[in-house]
Protein backbone atom coordinates (compact mmCIF):
# COMPACT_ATOMS: atom_id res chain seq x y z
CA UNK A 1 0.00 0.00 0.00
CA UNK A 2 1.38 3.38 -0.89
CA UNK A 3 1.54 6.27 1.50
CA UNK A 4 -0.20 9.44 0.45
CA UNK A 5 0.26 12.82 2.12
CA UNK A 6 -3.41 13.48 1.46
CA UNK A 7 -4.50 10.55 3.60
CA UNK A 8 -6.69 12.72 5.78
CA UNK A 9 -8.61 14.14 2.89
CA UNK A 10 -9.06 10.71 1.45
CA UNK A 11 -10.74 9.52 4.64
CA UNK A 12 -13.26 12.35 4.38
CA UNK A 13 -13.97 11.46 0.78
CA UNK A 14 -14.63 7.84 1.74
CA UNK A 15 -16.89 8.98 4.56
CA UNK A 16 -18.79 11.24 2.20
CA UNK A 17 -19.33 8.41 -0.31
CA UNK A 18 -20.58 6.10 2.42
CA UNK A 19 -22.88 8.76 3.85
CA UNK A 20 -24.48 9.46 0.47
CA UNK A 21 -24.82 5.74 -0.23
CA UNK A 22 -26.44 5.14 3.17
CA UNK A 23 -28.79 8.07 2.70
CA UNK A 24 -29.97 6.64 -0.60
CA UNK A 25 -30.37 3.08 0.69
CA UNK A 26 -32.28 4.12 3.77
CA UNK A 27 -34.35 7.12 2.68
CA UNK A 28 -34.28 7.07 -1.13
CA UNK A 29 -32.74 10.54 -1.43
CA UNK A 30 -30.05 10.38 -4.08
CA UNK A 31 -27.35 13.05 -3.79
CA UNK A 32 -24.62 10.83 -5.21
CA UNK A 33 -24.34 12.73 -8.48
CA UNK A 34 -24.65 16.22 -7.04
CA UNK A 35 -21.71 18.61 -7.55
CA UNK A 36 -19.45 17.72 -4.69
CA UNK A 37 -17.97 21.07 -3.66
CA UNK A 38 -21.21 22.79 -2.64
CA UNK A 39 -22.77 19.55 -1.38
CA UNK A 40 -19.79 19.16 0.91
CA UNK A 41 -20.23 22.68 2.29
CA UNK A 42 -23.85 21.97 3.13
CA UNK A 43 -23.03 18.63 4.71
CA UNK A 44 -20.32 20.30 6.82
CA UNK A 45 -22.90 22.82 8.03
CA UNK A 46 -25.28 20.01 8.99
CA UNK A 47 -22.42 18.23 10.72
CA UNK A 48 -21.73 21.31 12.85
CA UNK A 49 -25.41 21.87 13.56
CA UNK A 50 -25.79 18.27 14.74
CA UNK A 51 -22.53 18.58 16.73
CA UNK A 52 -20.81 15.67 15.01
CA UNK A 53 -17.03 15.57 14.79
CA UNK A 54 -16.83 13.35 11.71
CA UNK A 55 -19.00 12.47 8.74
CA UNK A 56 -19.10 8.87 10.00
CA UNK A 57 -20.67 10.10 13.21
CA UNK A 58 -23.13 12.14 11.17
CA UNK A 59 -23.97 9.05 9.12
CA UNK A 60 -24.64 7.10 12.29
CA UNK A 61 -26.98 9.81 13.54
CA UNK A 62 -29.02 10.22 10.38
CA UNK A 63 -29.38 6.49 9.80
CA UNK A 64 -30.67 5.93 13.32
CA UNK A 65 -32.74 9.04 13.96
CA UNK A 66 -35.40 10.21 11.55
CA UNK A 67 -35.47 13.55 13.34
CA UNK A 68 -31.77 14.10 12.71
CA UNK A 69 -32.36 13.00 9.15
CA UNK A 70 -35.01 15.72 8.70
CA UNK A 71 -32.61 18.34 10.07
CA UNK A 72 -29.88 17.07 7.80
CA UNK A 73 -32.17 17.08 4.76
CA UNK A 74 -33.20 20.68 5.33
CA UNK A 75 -29.53 21.68 5.14
CA UNK A 76 -29.10 19.82 1.88
CA UNK A 77 -32.13 21.04 0.03
CA UNK A 78 -33.34 24.40 1.30
CA UNK A 79 -32.77 27.05 -1.32
CA UNK A 80 -32.97 30.75 -0.83
CA UNK A 81 -34.77 32.58 -3.59
CA UNK A 82 -36.68 35.77 -4.28
CA UNK A 83 -39.93 36.56 -6.02
CA UNK A 84 -39.23 37.79 -9.54
CA UNK A 85 -35.54 36.99 -9.06
CA UNK A 86 -33.72 38.34 -12.13
CA UNK A 87 -36.57 40.66 -13.19
CA UNK A 88 -35.46 40.63 -16.84
CA UNK A 89 -36.26 36.90 -16.97
CA UNK A 90 -39.87 37.57 -15.99
CA UNK A 91 -40.03 40.51 -18.36
CA UNK A 92 -38.93 38.23 -21.21
CA UNK A 93 -41.57 35.67 -20.21
CA UNK A 94 -44.23 38.37 -20.15
CA UNK A 95 -43.30 39.96 -23.45
CA UNK A 96 -42.07 37.03 -25.51
CA UNK A 97 -43.30 33.72 -24.10
CA UNK A 98 -46.81 34.63 -22.91
CA UNK A 99 -47.98 35.52 -26.46
CA UNK A 100 -47.22 31.90 -27.44
CA UNK A 101 -48.87 30.45 -24.33
CA UNK A 102 -51.96 32.53 -25.03
CA UNK A 103 -52.69 30.37 -28.08
CA UNK A 104 -53.31 27.26 -25.95
CA UNK A 105 -56.79 26.55 -24.55
CA UNK A 106 -55.21 25.28 -21.35
CA UNK A 107 -51.71 26.00 -20.10
CA UNK A 108 -49.64 23.80 -17.85
CA UNK A 109 -46.61 25.30 -16.14
CA UNK A 110 -44.09 23.29 -14.15
CA UNK A 111 -41.94 25.01 -11.53
CA UNK A 112 -39.27 22.35 -10.99
CA UNK A 113 -37.46 22.79 -7.68
CA UNK A 114 -39.95 25.31 -6.32
CA UNK A 115 -38.36 25.47 -2.87
CA UNK A 116 -40.34 27.84 -0.60
CA UNK A 117 -42.60 28.98 -3.43
CA UNK A 118 -41.19 32.36 -4.42
CA UNK A 119 -41.10 31.41 -8.08
CA UNK A 120 -44.56 29.88 -8.03
CA UNK A 121 -46.16 33.06 -6.68
CA UNK A 122 -44.21 35.10 -9.23
CA UNK A 123 -45.70 32.98 -12.02
CA UNK A 124 -49.20 33.07 -10.53
CA UNK A 125 -49.08 36.87 -10.38
CA UNK A 126 -47.66 37.13 -13.90
CA UNK A 127 -50.30 34.87 -15.43
CA UNK A 128 -53.10 36.61 -13.51
CA UNK A 129 -51.99 40.00 -14.80
CA UNK A 130 -51.94 38.60 -18.32
CA UNK A 131 -55.50 37.34 -17.90
CA UNK A 132 -54.54 33.69 -18.31
CA UNK A 133 -54.79 32.46 -14.74
CA UNK A 134 -58.06 30.60 -15.25
CA UNK A 135 -56.58 28.59 -18.10
CA UNK A 136 -53.48 27.63 -16.10
CA UNK A 137 -52.40 24.75 -13.95
CA UNK A 138 -49.15 25.16 -12.02
CA UNK A 139 -47.18 22.14 -10.91
CA UNK A 140 -44.83 23.15 -8.08
CA UNK A 141 -42.44 20.35 -7.26
CA UNK A 142 -39.54 19.88 -4.90
CA UNK A 143 -37.83 17.00 -3.09
CA UNK A 144 -38.11 18.74 0.26
CA UNK A 145 -41.45 18.28 2.02
CA UNK A 146 -40.78 21.10 4.45
CA UNK A 147 -40.13 23.47 1.55
CA UNK A 148 -43.37 22.36 -0.14
CA UNK A 149 -45.31 23.12 3.04
CA UNK A 150 -43.74 26.58 3.14
CA UNK A 151 -44.59 27.11 -0.50
CA UNK A 152 -48.19 26.16 0.18
CA UNK A 153 -48.37 28.47 3.18
CA UNK A 154 -47.06 31.45 1.20
CA UNK A 155 -45.76 33.27 4.26
CA UNK A 156 -42.60 35.40 3.94
CA UNK A 157 -40.57 37.82 5.98
CA UNK A 158 -41.46 41.52 5.59
CA UNK A 159 -37.80 42.45 5.03
CA UNK A 160 -37.69 40.12 2.02
CA UNK A 161 -40.86 41.57 0.55
CA UNK A 162 -39.06 44.90 -0.03
CA UNK A 163 -36.75 43.15 -2.48
CA UNK A 164 -39.66 41.20 -4.01
CA UNK A 165 -41.46 44.51 -4.63
CA UNK A 166 -38.46 46.06 -6.32
CA UNK A 167 -38.05 42.99 -8.52
CA UNK A 168 -41.76 42.96 -9.38
CA UNK A 169 -41.62 46.55 -10.57
CA UNK A 170 -38.49 45.93 -12.65
CA UNK A 171 -40.17 42.85 -14.14
CA UNK A 172 -42.93 45.04 -15.57
CA UNK A 173 -45.57 44.41 -12.92
CA UNK A 174 -48.91 45.97 -13.82
CA UNK A 175 -50.45 46.47 -10.38
CA UNK A 176 -49.29 47.45 -6.94
CA UNK A 177 -47.38 44.54 -5.42
CA UNK A 178 -49.05 45.07 -2.06
CA UNK A 179 -52.36 44.05 -3.65
CA UNK A 180 -51.11 40.47 -3.52
CA UNK A 181 -50.41 40.12 0.17
CA UNK A 182 -51.48 41.14 3.64
CA UNK A 183 -49.08 41.88 6.46
CA UNK A 184 -49.98 40.36 9.78
CA UNK A 185 -48.16 39.51 13.02
CA UNK A 186 -44.73 40.38 11.67
CA UNK A 187 -45.05 38.32 8.52
CA UNK A 188 -46.45 38.71 5.06
CA UNK A 189 -49.08 36.30 3.77
CA UNK A 190 -49.73 36.01 0.05
CA UNK A 191 -53.27 36.01 -1.28
CA UNK A 192 -54.57 32.43 -1.02
CA UNK A 193 -56.35 32.73 -4.35
CA UNK A 194 -52.94 32.86 -6.06
CA UNK A 195 -52.40 29.19 -5.34
CA UNK A 196 -55.85 27.94 -6.26
CA UNK A 197 -54.52 26.65 -9.60
CA UNK A 198 -51.35 25.17 -8.08
CA UNK A 199 -50.59 21.53 -7.36
CA UNK A 200 -47.77 21.02 -4.87
CA UNK A 201 -45.97 17.76 -5.18
CA UNK A 202 -42.93 15.79 -4.13
CA UNK A 203 -40.89 15.09 -7.24
CA UNK A 204 -37.20 14.36 -7.79
CA UNK A 205 -35.37 15.24 -10.99
CA UNK A 206 -32.83 12.58 -10.00
CA UNK A 207 -35.05 9.55 -9.44
CA UNK A 208 -38.60 10.31 -10.68
CA UNK A 209 -40.01 10.39 -14.20
CA UNK A 210 -42.39 12.37 -16.40
CA UNK A 211 -45.74 13.06 -14.71
CA UNK A 212 -47.53 15.34 -17.14
CA UNK A 213 -47.27 17.10 -20.47
CA UNK A 214 -46.54 20.79 -19.94
CA UNK A 215 -46.14 23.98 -21.98
CA UNK A 216 -43.55 25.77 -19.89
CA UNK A 217 -40.96 24.54 -17.42
CA UNK A 218 -39.05 26.92 -15.19
CA UNK A 219 -36.14 25.31 -13.40
CA UNK A 220 -33.79 27.95 -12.10
CA UNK A 221 -30.55 27.42 -10.22
CA UNK A 222 -31.21 23.73 -9.72
CA UNK A 223 -29.03 22.24 -12.47
CA UNK A 224 -25.89 23.98 -11.14
CA UNK A 225 -26.06 21.63 -8.16
CA UNK A 226 -25.88 18.56 -10.40
CA UNK A 227 -22.91 16.87 -12.03
CA UNK A 228 -23.07 16.96 -15.79
CA UNK A 229 -24.51 13.44 -16.22
CA UNK A 230 -27.30 14.27 -13.82
CA UNK A 231 -27.92 17.58 -15.59
CA UNK A 232 -28.44 15.52 -18.75
CA UNK A 233 -30.95 13.29 -16.99
CA UNK A 234 -32.94 16.29 -15.75
CA UNK A 235 -32.92 18.03 -19.12
CA UNK A 236 -33.98 14.74 -20.75
CA UNK A 237 -36.92 14.68 -18.37
CA UNK A 238 -37.83 18.24 -19.37
CA UNK A 239 -37.58 17.34 -23.05
CA UNK A 240 -39.96 14.41 -22.56
CA UNK A 241 -42.39 16.52 -20.51
CA UNK A 242 -42.73 19.46 -22.88
CA UNK A 243 -45.24 19.75 -25.69
CA UNK A 244 -43.76 20.40 -29.12
CA UNK A 245 -42.58 24.05 -29.13
CA UNK A 246 -42.83 24.14 -25.33
CA UNK A 247 -40.52 26.41 -23.32
CA UNK A 248 -37.76 25.78 -20.82
CA UNK A 249 -36.40 28.59 -18.62
CA UNK A 250 -33.15 28.12 -16.69
CA UNK A 251 -31.15 30.18 -14.18
CA UNK A 252 -29.13 33.12 -15.47
CA UNK A 253 -25.86 31.14 -15.40
CA UNK A 254 -27.24 27.83 -16.65
CA UNK A 255 -27.06 26.73 -20.25
CA UNK A 256 -27.94 23.85 -22.57
CA UNK A 257 -24.77 24.48 -24.55
CA UNK A 258 -22.99 21.47 -23.07
CA UNK A 259 -26.05 19.25 -22.73
CA UNK A 260 -26.45 16.02 -24.66
CA UNK A 261 -29.99 17.23 -25.41
CA UNK A 262 -29.00 20.59 -26.84
CA UNK A 263 -30.04 19.62 -30.37
CA UNK A 264 -33.60 19.06 -29.16
CA UNK A 265 -33.93 22.72 -28.20
CA UNK A 266 -33.66 26.06 -29.92
CA UNK A 267 -32.36 29.10 -28.08
CA UNK A 268 -35.39 31.36 -27.69
CA UNK A 269 -33.82 34.15 -25.61
CA UNK A 270 -30.10 33.73 -25.10
CA UNK A 271 -29.62 36.37 -22.41
CA UNK A 272 -32.50 35.10 -20.30
CA UNK A 273 -31.67 31.42 -20.87
CA UNK A 274 -35.06 30.56 -22.31
CA UNK A 275 -35.15 27.60 -24.69
CA UNK A 276 -37.86 26.18 -26.95
CA UNK A 277 -38.29 22.52 -27.78
CA UNK A 278 -37.99 21.87 -31.50
CA UNK A 279 -40.73 20.06 -33.37
CA UNK A 280 -40.12 16.62 -34.90
CA UNK A 281 -37.86 16.81 -37.97
Amino acid sequence: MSFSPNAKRKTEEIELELLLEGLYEKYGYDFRRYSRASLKRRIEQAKDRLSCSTLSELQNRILHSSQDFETFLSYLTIQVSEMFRDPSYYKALRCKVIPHLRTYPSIKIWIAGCSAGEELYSFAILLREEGLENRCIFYATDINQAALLKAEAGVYRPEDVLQFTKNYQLAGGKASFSDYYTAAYGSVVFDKSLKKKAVFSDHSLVTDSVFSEVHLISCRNVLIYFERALQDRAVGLFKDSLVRKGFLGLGSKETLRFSEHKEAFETFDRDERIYQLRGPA
Partner: protein
Amino acid sequence: MKVRNVTTNVSAVVIGASTGGIEALQQIFRFMENEFTLAVIVVIHLPPSGKSMLPSLFEGYSFKRVKEAEDKEKIEAGTLYFAPHNYHLLIESDSTFSLSSDEPVSFARPSIDVLFESATDAFGDQLIGIVLSGANEDGAKGVHAICKAGGIVLVQEPSSAVASAMPLAGAAACAEAKQMSPVAIGSYLNKLGVTAYAAK
Protein backbone atom coordinates in the same frame (compact mmCIF):
# COMPACT_ATOMS: atom_id res chain seq x y z
CA MET B 1 11.95 12.81 1.66
CA LYS B 2 10.61 14.78 -1.25
CA VAL B 3 11.47 18.45 -1.15
CA ARG B 4 8.77 20.50 -2.67
CA ASN B 5 9.68 23.17 -5.16
CA VAL B 6 7.05 25.81 -4.60
CA THR B 7 7.66 27.57 -7.86
CA THR B 8 6.88 24.63 -10.12
CA ASN B 9 4.22 22.79 -8.17
CA VAL B 10 1.47 25.35 -8.14
CA SER B 11 -1.78 24.39 -9.90
CA ALA B 12 -3.69 27.64 -9.59
CA VAL B 13 -3.79 31.10 -8.05
CA VAL B 14 -6.96 32.23 -6.28
CA ILE B 15 -7.50 35.90 -5.48
CA GLY B 16 -10.09 37.63 -3.30
CA ALA B 17 -10.74 41.36 -3.46
CA SER B 18 -13.33 43.86 -2.32
CA THR B 19 -13.28 47.66 -1.86
CA GLY B 20 -10.23 48.98 -3.73
CA GLY B 21 -9.62 45.56 -5.20
CA ILE B 22 -10.00 46.34 -8.89
CA GLU B 23 -7.21 48.94 -8.70
CA ALA B 24 -4.98 46.54 -6.75
CA LEU B 25 -5.57 43.79 -9.32
CA GLN B 26 -4.73 46.11 -12.19
CA GLN B 27 -1.50 47.13 -10.44
CA ILE B 28 -0.57 43.48 -9.98
CA PHE B 29 -1.26 42.51 -13.56
CA ARG B 30 0.58 45.54 -14.92
CA PHE B 31 3.76 44.09 -13.47
CA MET B 32 3.34 40.75 -15.14
CA GLU B 33 5.13 41.03 -18.43
CA ASN B 34 5.19 37.49 -19.72
CA GLU B 35 2.33 35.35 -20.86
CA PHE B 36 1.20 33.85 -17.58
CA THR B 37 0.93 30.08 -17.57
CA LEU B 38 -1.22 29.33 -14.53
CA ALA B 39 -4.95 29.66 -14.06
CA VAL B 40 -5.89 32.70 -11.98
CA ILE B 41 -9.35 32.65 -10.39
CA VAL B 42 -10.76 35.83 -8.88
CA VAL B 43 -13.68 36.72 -6.62
CA ILE B 44 -14.41 40.43 -6.37
CA HIS B 45 -17.28 41.79 -4.27
CA LEU B 46 -19.39 44.15 -6.32
CA PRO B 47 -22.64 45.95 -5.62
CA PRO B 48 -25.53 43.57 -6.43
CA SER B 49 -26.76 45.10 -9.65
CA GLY B 50 -26.27 45.03 -13.35
CA LYS B 51 -24.19 42.89 -15.65
CA SER B 52 -20.57 42.12 -14.87
CA MET B 53 -18.11 44.09 -16.97
CA LEU B 54 -15.16 42.55 -15.14
CA PRO B 55 -13.64 40.44 -17.92
CA SER B 56 -13.60 43.46 -20.26
CA LEU B 57 -11.81 45.56 -17.62
CA PHE B 58 -8.97 43.09 -17.60
CA GLU B 59 -8.29 42.60 -21.30
CA GLY B 60 -4.77 43.42 -22.45
CA TYR B 61 -2.83 41.90 -19.56
CA SER B 62 -0.57 38.89 -19.84
CA PHE B 63 -3.25 36.20 -20.01
CA LYS B 64 -4.18 34.03 -22.95
CA ARG B 65 -7.83 34.41 -22.09
CA VAL B 66 -10.00 36.45 -19.71
CA LYS B 67 -13.53 35.27 -18.98
CA GLU B 68 -16.32 34.73 -16.51
CA ALA B 69 -16.16 31.24 -14.99
CA GLU B 70 -18.97 28.97 -16.17
CA ASP B 71 -20.69 26.10 -14.41
CA LYS B 72 -18.91 22.75 -15.09
CA GLU B 73 -16.22 24.45 -17.18
CA LYS B 74 -12.77 22.85 -17.13
CA ILE B 75 -10.12 25.15 -15.64
CA GLU B 76 -7.41 25.94 -18.17
CA ALA B 77 -3.90 27.24 -17.68
CA GLY B 78 -3.09 30.81 -18.69
CA THR B 79 -6.67 31.94 -18.19
CA LEU B 80 -7.96 34.64 -15.87
CA TYR B 81 -11.40 33.74 -14.52
CA PHE B 82 -13.87 35.92 -12.63
CA ALA B 83 -16.70 34.62 -10.46
CA PRO B 84 -20.07 35.55 -11.97
CA HIS B 85 -22.16 38.14 -10.23
CA ASN B 86 -24.49 36.84 -7.51
CA TYR B 87 -23.23 33.24 -7.49
CA HIS B 88 -20.66 31.44 -5.39
CA LEU B 89 -17.81 29.97 -7.42
CA LEU B 90 -16.43 26.60 -6.33
CA ILE B 91 -13.74 24.28 -7.65
CA GLU B 92 -14.33 20.55 -7.94
CA SER B 93 -11.64 17.90 -7.52
CA ASP B 94 -11.64 17.24 -11.29
CA SER B 95 -10.54 20.87 -11.89
CA THR B 96 -13.91 22.06 -13.09
CA PHE B 97 -15.97 24.95 -11.76
CA SER B 98 -19.33 24.71 -10.05
CA LEU B 99 -21.66 27.58 -9.28
CA SER B 100 -24.04 27.79 -6.36
CA SER B 101 -26.79 30.19 -5.41
CA ASP B 102 -26.63 29.23 -1.74
CA GLU B 103 -27.16 32.06 0.72
CA PRO B 104 -24.42 34.70 1.01
CA VAL B 105 -21.51 33.77 3.29
CA SER B 106 -20.45 36.68 5.55
CA PHE B 107 -22.87 38.83 3.53
CA ALA B 108 -21.02 38.06 0.31
CA ARG B 109 -22.00 36.19 -2.83
CA PRO B 110 -19.66 35.38 -4.45
CA SER B 111 -17.73 34.64 -1.27
CA ILE B 112 -13.92 34.52 -1.16
CA ASP B 113 -14.03 31.89 1.60
CA VAL B 114 -16.19 29.58 -0.52
CA LEU B 115 -13.77 29.80 -3.47
CA PHE B 116 -10.64 29.43 -1.32
CA GLU B 117 -11.96 26.50 0.75
CA SER B 118 -13.12 24.54 -2.27
CA ALA B 119 -9.86 25.33 -4.10
CA THR B 120 -7.97 23.92 -1.11
CA ASP B 121 -9.98 20.70 -1.32
CA ALA B 122 -9.22 20.47 -5.02
CA PHE B 123 -5.54 21.51 -5.12
CA GLY B 124 -4.23 20.88 -1.60
CA ASP B 125 -0.79 22.47 -1.13
CA GLN B 126 -0.44 23.32 -4.84
CA LEU B 127 -2.32 26.55 -4.41
CA ILE B 128 -1.56 30.24 -3.93
CA GLY B 129 -4.22 32.36 -2.24
CA ILE B 130 -4.05 36.15 -2.33
CA VAL B 131 -6.18 38.57 -0.31
CA LEU B 132 -6.33 42.15 -1.57
CA SER B 133 -7.92 45.39 -0.40
CA GLY B 134 -11.34 45.12 1.25
CA ALA B 135 -13.40 46.47 4.13
CA ASN B 136 -14.65 43.17 5.55
CA GLU B 137 -13.21 39.85 6.68
CA ASP B 138 -14.19 37.57 3.82
CA GLY B 139 -11.22 35.42 2.83
CA ALA B 140 -9.87 34.91 6.36
CA LYS B 141 -11.36 31.42 6.73
CA GLY B 142 -10.22 30.65 3.22
CA VAL B 143 -6.58 31.57 3.77
CA HIS B 144 -6.65 29.66 7.04
CA ALA B 145 -7.64 26.55 5.05
CA ILE B 146 -4.94 27.17 2.41
CA CYS B 147 -2.34 27.70 5.13
CA LYS B 148 -3.34 24.51 6.94
CA ALA B 149 -3.10 22.51 3.73
CA GLY B 150 0.42 23.81 3.10
CA GLY B 151 -0.35 26.24 0.28
CA ILE B 152 1.08 29.73 -0.11
CA VAL B 153 -0.75 32.82 1.18
CA LEU B 154 -0.02 36.39 0.16
CA VAL B 155 -1.90 39.41 1.48
CA GLN B 156 -1.75 42.95 0.23
CA GLU B 157 0.44 45.07 2.50
CA PRO B 158 -2.26 46.88 4.52
CA SER B 159 -0.70 50.32 4.06
CA SER B 160 -0.94 49.94 0.27
CA ALA B 161 -4.63 48.94 0.41
CA VAL B 162 -7.58 51.31 0.00
CA ALA B 163 -9.29 49.27 2.74
CA SER B 164 -7.02 47.31 5.06
CA ALA B 165 -9.52 45.19 7.05
CA MET B 166 -9.50 42.25 4.65
CA PRO B 167 -5.70 41.90 4.27
CA LEU B 168 -5.30 42.33 8.04
CA ALA B 169 -7.85 39.60 8.74
CA GLY B 170 -6.11 37.40 6.17
CA ALA B 171 -2.73 37.93 7.78
CA ALA B 172 -4.16 37.19 11.22
CA ALA B 173 -5.65 33.92 9.96
CA CYS B 174 -2.37 32.61 8.54
CA ALA B 175 0.91 33.04 10.42
CA GLU B 176 2.96 32.26 7.29
CA ALA B 177 1.16 34.82 5.12
CA LYS B 178 3.56 37.15 3.29
CA GLN B 179 2.56 40.80 3.15
CA MET B 180 3.38 42.40 -0.19
CA SER B 181 2.56 45.49 -2.21
CA PRO B 182 0.66 44.92 -5.47
CA VAL B 183 3.90 45.55 -7.38
CA ALA B 184 5.72 42.87 -5.37
CA ILE B 185 2.82 40.43 -5.85
CA GLY B 186 2.94 41.12 -9.58
CA SER B 187 6.63 40.37 -9.89
CA TYR B 188 6.28 37.31 -7.64
CA LEU B 189 3.57 35.92 -9.91
CA ASN B 190 5.53 36.90 -12.97
CA LYS B 191 8.54 34.87 -11.83
CA LEU B 192 6.28 32.00 -10.87
CA GLY B 193 4.61 32.00 -14.27
CA VAL B 194 7.94 31.94 -16.08
CA THR B 195 9.32 29.15 -13.88
CA ALA B 196 6.18 27.09 -14.32
CA TYR B 197 6.52 27.61 -18.06
CA ALA B 198 10.22 26.62 -18.06
CA ALA B 199 9.35 23.46 -16.11
CA LYS B 200 6.97 22.23 -18.81
